[in-house]
């Protein structure tokens, strides 16, 4: 792990601090500091969302013309045919784990506080199942990451980061990158931090 990664991990951990989180949910903007300067990412306006959608559509047309562009379904097929991995089997495994979860939940739920041993036994089982599920899900995601759908999600997120990251300059919030090209050329940790913040702000909730 290099220094940049360690810093990013530390940065992610600071976002999980309960007091910061309490502050973060007050508004639809997420402030952060970088090189002792104040930045923020904010929720995109309708117009910015529409722009990001347009950019995604543009990229979709571009990607599908490339010979190696594969959709999730195509990628699944290729992975299976070449004996790399069977995603269907992994998904069946994930569903099986989810079923086991439900059985443990039914045992755990009616337990009284006094039954400490019983509660901790069931919670241990749940933790174990959670780890198993996480491993399977990560495996699926890792193999499907090059798919058209996942790449387009990434493109969309990047466009929002470019549109909605601002810096505090003399009491005014101004855009960090003037053009999307400028953003794409920026390899500094600032761009990565802004992506992390935007991911947390959106929190996988698609309202658009």
């Amino acid at each position, binding site marked *: 792990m290099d220094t940049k990664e360690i810093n990013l991990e530390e940065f992610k951990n600071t976002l999980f601090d309960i007091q910061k989180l309490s502050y973060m949910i007050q508004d639809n903007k997420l402030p952060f500091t970088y090189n002792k300067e104040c930045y923020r990412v904010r929720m995109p306006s309708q117009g910015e969302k529409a722009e990001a959608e347009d950019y995604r559509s543009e990229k979709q047309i571009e990607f599908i013309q490339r010979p190696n562009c594969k959709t999730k379904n195509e990628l699944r097929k290729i992975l299976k045919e070449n004996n790399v991995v069977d995603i269907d089997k992994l998904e069946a495994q994930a569903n099986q784990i989810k079923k086991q979860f439900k059985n443990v939940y039914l045992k755990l739920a009616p337990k009284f*506080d006094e039954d400490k041993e019983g509660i901790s036994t069931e*919670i241990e089982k749940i933790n174990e199942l959670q780890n198993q599920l996480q491993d399977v899900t990560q495996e699926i995601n890792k193999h499907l990451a090059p798919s058209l759908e996942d790449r387009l999600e990434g493109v969309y997120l990047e466009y929002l980061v470019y549109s909605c990251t601002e810096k505090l300059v003399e009491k005014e919030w101004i855009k960090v990158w003037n053009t999307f090209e400028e953003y794409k050329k920026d390899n500094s940790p600032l761009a990565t931090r802004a992506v992390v913040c935007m991911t947390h702000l959106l929190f996988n909730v698609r309202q658009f």
Partner: protein
Amino acid sequence: MIEDKLRQLARSSYYQSLYKASKENGIKLFENDTNLSGLQVVFLYWLSLYDFLYDTLARKEYDFLTEKYIDSNVRVDAFLYYRKRQNELELAKSKEEQLRQRTKFKGKKGKQTYFDVEFA
């Protein structure tokens, strides 16, 4: 995990009181009224869920449900599934009961006719 912390905040007495006040008196929960962030949407979900759980606790609907219970995320997850399953079973049972109680009418030539009657 960030969601665990969100849940911790949502069940705190401060946010629960604020949530009640926002429902009853329209007190603002957030700085922004529109364009909620994903984080805010998820937080609202947990606020309403814990509000429901504390109400359930006050009504003493389940004898095993305590404040300590509500403080445990895993136990709350288990409870939500348990409750959902219970509701599904009750619904299935009542549908079965409805079928059993289908009104019987004797028609011509002593033939029995069944009518499905939906009980609200």
